[in-house]
């Protein structure tokens, strides 16, 4: 086994396995530990200049990568006109620099503010550093190996699909320059640490808020709804077995 297979074939599967299994286990078994871990209460000025550009920037950049993965032909067609290629590349680069700015503010804030330091765990810093590597290598790739959006569909789209469809072809990335390989490997690394760090808050994005009812009213003890006590009955039924009556209606969890 050579390095190429180890880093770009074996490790991706390890990362994906961790991502799926541990995330599921944590969401299900340790829900209290899942939080965005906001520190806005402790410091808000720098957070505004860090969090907002970082999150929006990274959101759009990831969306761009996803589009290139799902619609490679569309991307090539778009890039067929040089002007459109330039627009895309410049937009991507600008977004990356915006994100980088935000991330640096966040990193500075995390390491300089006394209150933030008090709530900082090693994993918080590790996540920020991994993200920093991703963004820096991404920018280096975009600047040094032009034009990323031009060769991505012919290199990364097949590579990523080969991993996701369980027919790995790590040789596709074997001959790429170091910075690009680092960018790819760092991606798998981020997936691997995802369930162990605050990154897990990404999968809790509350899109359901868009259509849920404003008010949530929950009957904690549904037996009261299912089994109205008749007027003459004493308040404490002594001989009656409530669960027998409930079973007819689908048990205590039965519909309301």
């Amino acid at each position, binding site marked *: 086994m050579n390095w190429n297979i180890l880093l770009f074939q074996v490790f991706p599967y390890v990362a994906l396995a961790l991502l799926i299994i541990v995330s599921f286990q944590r969401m299900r078994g340790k*829900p209290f530990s899942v*939080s965005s871990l906001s520190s*806005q209460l402790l410091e808000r000025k720098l957070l505004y200049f860090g969090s907002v550009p970082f*999150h929006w920037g990274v959101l759009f950049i990831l969306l761009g990568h996803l589009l290139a993965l799902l619609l490679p032909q569309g991307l090539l067609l778009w890039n067929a006109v040089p002007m459109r290629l330039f627009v895309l590349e410049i937009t991507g680069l600008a977004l990356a620099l915006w994100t980088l700015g935000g991330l640096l503010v966040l990193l500075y804030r995390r390491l300089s503010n006394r209150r933030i330091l008090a709530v900082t765990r090693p994993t918080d810093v590790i996540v920020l550093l991994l993200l920093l590597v991703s963004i820096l290598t991404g920018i280096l790739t975009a600047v040094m190996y032009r034009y990323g959006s031009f060769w991505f569909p012919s290199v990364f789209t097949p590579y990523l699909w080969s991993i996701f469809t369980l027919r790995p072809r790590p040789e596709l990335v074997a001959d790429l320059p170091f910075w690009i390989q680092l960018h790819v490997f760092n991606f798998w690394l981020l997936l691997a640490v995802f369930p162990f760090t605050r990154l897990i808050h990404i999968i809790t994005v509350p899109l359901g808020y868009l259509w849920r009812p404003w008010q949530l009213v929950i*009957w904690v003890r549904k037996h009261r709804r299912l089994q109205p006590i008749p007027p003459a009955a004493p308040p404490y039924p002594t001989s009656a077995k409530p669960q027998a009556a409930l079973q007819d209606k689908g048990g205590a969890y039965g519909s309301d």
Partner: protein
Amino acid sequence: MNVRAHVSMTFHLDKCIGCHTCSVACKNLWTDRKGTEYMWWNNVETRPGTGYPTGWEDQERFKGGWEKKNGQLELRLHSRARGLTNLFYNPALPELDDYYEPFTFDYQHLFSAPEGDDQPVARPVSMITGEPLNLEAGPNWDDDLGGSNLYAQNDPNWAGVAPEIQAQMAEIERVAFNYMPRICNHCLNPACVAACPSGAIYKRAEDGVVLVNENKCKGWRMCVAACPYKKVYYNWATGKSEKCILCFPRLETGQAPACFHSCVGRIRYLGAILYDADRIATAANAETQELVQAQLDAILDPFDPQVIAAARANGLGEDWIKAAQASPVYKFVKVWKLALPLHPEYRTMAMLFYIPPLSPIVSSIEEGLVRLELPPEKVDFELFNHLEKARLPLEYLANLFAAGNVEVIKPILRKLLAVRIYKRRQSVEGSIDPATLKIVEAAGTTPEEIEAIYQLTTKPTLQERFVVPPYHREMATEVWNDPLAHKGETGVGFIELPVRGD
């Protein structure tokens, strides 16, 4: 009619002595953990004042509660889409300094200080960073500072009060203030529930207690901003929101919440009321001046046979209906019409009702003598007819409890005064003169009602103050499981410690 029960509350502000026993009882029970030091689920404010967190009523800044937009009820904080885009940074969230940085004192230094010329002192240190701190705010920092230009004069409830009256309230010899204890209002139309993107906050249908599901909470902190009373707090150590739980473990075992039980002035009353859940939407959307009445209309008469039948049909037990009939809250709020929700204009329909306080008569000191602005003969009668001469301005109280509508406050103060005048004549002079009876009539009450108000106000027993409906915890297991199976299963499983995740 969709009848539900609500464990509701009344605070009698005339009886509050501002001792903060409630706050301490709550603090010791619920918020002495790391990350919660700054939280006061129960706090007692000096009014006029800016309260806790400082200036919480300034909704231009904190965006709490609901507002009417084009006839529709909308959160002041955000629309649904805006709520999602504000996840990364919530512009309306108060920061720690709006509360205060929690601190302790470096007592160890008293023992470990090296020998020197000066006595060692215990310096205050932050409970977050552990570093020395210059104290600029703390719990009850503005306690008793009525008239202070830092706190009392910045009270948002001065809106519409004449400048000369405000100036008068700032004069050292004319200062008047009262205490206002605040806990979560367990609203009927809670803005915190509506603002939570994760759907982690909910209202228990059985008793109306509003709770945060700590497992579902993801720390998006919208509830903190959306609650107009600022009674949801963010635990900076665990990354979860926390709030008053109305001591539901105590309620479910038949005890009043700790702050109620420990109240020295016995100002707190707790009891179930029945309300019509179908009327919430229209009541919350009423015209500003009619908000109080609309909310009172949603509260139902527990003696009405129709209401009882509807309650039974909705699964409410006889014991809860009986508890609602014995509820002191129902008496104060609906029968005697003495209690009002705090800031009804927030449209959350708070279910904690306040009996507004009476206050002394405006006076001045001339050549060392107190001169009242009303004739001193039968001064209580005079005050009854000249409520504007009470030191706490009517407009101020109206801004607190009636969305600025003075006409809602007046009859309450008159009735409270009538009780005083009547009982004073009765106990001091022994007989009731026609003038007193005229006052009683003018206040829209009767000697019998006055007697009842007097009894429940001055000498209620514990059982009369707190009518906790039976929760039947003893039946809880049987409802969910076979009791024998349950017995065999308890003790197996893992409970997650409430600690911050990575």
